[in-house]
């Protein structure tokens, strides 16, 4: 499948999935369970609204979502209390799979959700979306329900505030356009068809999630795309336009940290993919600068993109879900116990 064919077939708009009754009937025919996971860290101001909307619209009124869960990295504010008060299941990431130890990062929450939650499909939605709406969930689930070959659905946001006609640019944020798209263009041209590869909203089948490693930090989205692409090809992806997403904007320095983490994840994969010989050992310190009393000072950020192994390699997981270790996992890849 070339890029244009893929875009024509696998790029959707959330409005295609407005008929939730039809989607629920299709879900039931397939015997699927769907879990919605919201990873959080100090999100008490926005989490209440997300839970109220999702529980009312997608659990109570239209039972598309079977499990609504918040997995928290150890918030200092009332995030978990707020979420629980409106009916979400709430978990501390550190209390899930305690044998595996505790790492800090959004990717850790996403990885542990695979163990904790029971859905055949898991939908991940960030907690900082100001204009939250049920489309953020059903728009991502739709392709998985109606296209059996699709395994991983990514969100993108493409509604212009004002536009007359003709050609307009379409794409992602600053990190996407400056870093990810050039990297993908060099190494994985087909992945450039994903309009916003870093969006934090995606829905994925369990058999995919359990089979891929999880960087715990900035690199989780990038690694997913590369790893899923390597195993299943472009046809496994779909993307859905969810219109606008209003959220906090990050400064250039924060984006620098993000880029640094993504590059670590990316370069770690190159030797395994046979793209290059052994890489020199990479530094984990990002250096930024500030001026104090007319003197330039370095600010050092130690950013280590640690990774969790594929969940299927954990014995506890295989026991809980009655699965066996696939033969492709040889000794070198088997269980890492942190």
């Amino acid at each position, binding site marked *: 499948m070339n890029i244009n064919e893929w875009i024509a077939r696998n790029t959707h708009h959330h409005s295609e999935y407005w008929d939730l009754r039809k989607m629920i009937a299709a879900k039931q025919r397939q015997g699927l369970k769907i879990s919605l996971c919201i990873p959080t860290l100090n999100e008490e101001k926005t989490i209440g609204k997300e839970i*109220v909307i999702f529980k009312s619209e997608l659990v109570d009124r239209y039972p598309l979502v079977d499990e609504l869960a918040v997995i928290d990295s150890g918030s200092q504010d009332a995030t978990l209390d707020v979420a629980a008060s*409106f*009916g979400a299941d709430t978990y501390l990431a550190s209390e899930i799979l305690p044998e595996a130890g505790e790492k800090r990062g959004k990717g850790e929450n996403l990885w542990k959700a695979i163990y904790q939650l029971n859905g055949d499909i898991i939908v991940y939605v960030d907690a900082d979306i100001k204009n939250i709406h049920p489309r953020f969930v059903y728009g991502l689930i739709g392709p998985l329900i109606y296209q059996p070959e699709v395994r991983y659905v990514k969100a993108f946001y493409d509604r212009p505030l004002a536009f007359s006609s003709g050609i307009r640019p379409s794409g992602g944020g600053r990190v996407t356009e400056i870093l990810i798209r050039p990297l993908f263009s060099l190494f994985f041209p087909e992945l450039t068809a994903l309009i916003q590869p870093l969006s934090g909203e995606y829905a994925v089948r369990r058999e995919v999630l359990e089979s891929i490693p999880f960087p715990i930090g900035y690199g989780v989205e990038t690694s997913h795309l590369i790893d899923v692409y390597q195993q299943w090809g472009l046809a496994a992806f779909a993307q859905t336009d969810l219109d606008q997403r209003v959220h906090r904007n990050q400064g250039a320095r924060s984006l620098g940290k993000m880029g640094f983490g993504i590059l670590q994840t990316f370069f770690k994969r190159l030797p395994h993919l046979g793209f290059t010989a052994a890489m020199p050992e990479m530094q984990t310190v990002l250096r930024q600068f500030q001026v104090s009393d007319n003197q330039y000072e370095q600010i050092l950020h130690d950013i280590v993109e640690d990774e969790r192994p594929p969940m299927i390699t954990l014995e506890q997981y295989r026991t809980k879900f009655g699965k066996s270790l696939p033969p492709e996992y040889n000794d070198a890849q088997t269980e890492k116990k942190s």
Partner: protein
Amino acid sequence: MNAKNNFNFDRVKAMLPEIQKALEESRENLLASLVIISEIPAPTFQEAARIQYLKDRFTEYGLTNYTCDETGNGSVVIDGATGERNILILAHVDTVHKSSVDHTVTVLPDIVFGPGVGDNSLGVAMLATLPLILEKINYQFHSNLILMGAVRSLGRGNLEGQRFFLNNVNRKIDAGICVEGLKLGRLSYKSLGMRRGQFNVTVPQEAAWHPFGTFGAVRVMNQVINRLNQIPLPTDPRSTIILGSIDGGESYNTLATKATLRFEVRSESDRVPEEVEKELRLIAEEVASESGAEVKMDIFAQRLSGGIHFSHPLVHATRSVMDALDIEPIIRPSTSEISEFINHGIPAVTLGITECDNLGQPDETIYIEPIIRGAAQIIGVLIAIDQGAIDEY
């Protein structure tokens, strides 16, 4: 007094626990509607998106007789078993906030805040959720319930949507309930006499100042206000002039060329607003003459005083419901939707649902906990009307 009906409040009172339980079960649905409605901007004359939301909700509940009239009101009828009465339950959908205002709402365990969440997104959310709640209670209405999102209510809208509906509706409306988000305990069944309008002061551009001295529009408006303050107002009937907002000027050191003052004259009698209006026109002419500025006074909304009496069975039944729910009535006349009901001779009450802070501000805050009682009160009054509480003595 001999009641012609067999209305028995105890039957209504006995239902209140079940109503509250149904509301508890529907709490997230009500809050979700509140959030979605609040985040749809709806300044007066631009309410279509909110009305569309109501249509979608009503249609999802299987109410297939939804209609949108010429002014944009959205309404639906829940047919009663006998249709012996028609009860109109309405909530105004417009807000005082411009579309450009950030309408994002925040939900915390005990409060919700954002522009217009109480006035009147909560009222509209109640309307949108009412069919779901009524399905959960074991009560078959005899009356037809007409649920209506009313457009063009506020400011220059001047209740145009509701007025159009009542002037043109093809069935007799026997009673009305105006659903307001704020404030719990509010009980209005009388309308005040009212004039709503604005003063506009315009002076020439700065280059042509000298013939007019050094008065800018703001100082001319100050003269208007000084004169307004000298208008004698009676204490009986109670009367007041509310100066609601004032605009004018652009900076610290530039004389303003335009200023606007928005006001409302309210009185328990119709005579006072009529006389005050004459005074206001005189003030405009005199200040214009003294200052050389253009001073215009425009009245664009008015109400006649009136309403039902304290002893009316609808008021009595409403107070009984409030008492049973431990809601302290705050009785006050109104200039809002109740006026149009009164003009059409329809007994009606305005009820509020919850407590609030920062009314009218971008961080208007409503309290979640009282909502159950406030909403139960509305359904209790509906059942009371359905049981015959409005039948005249």
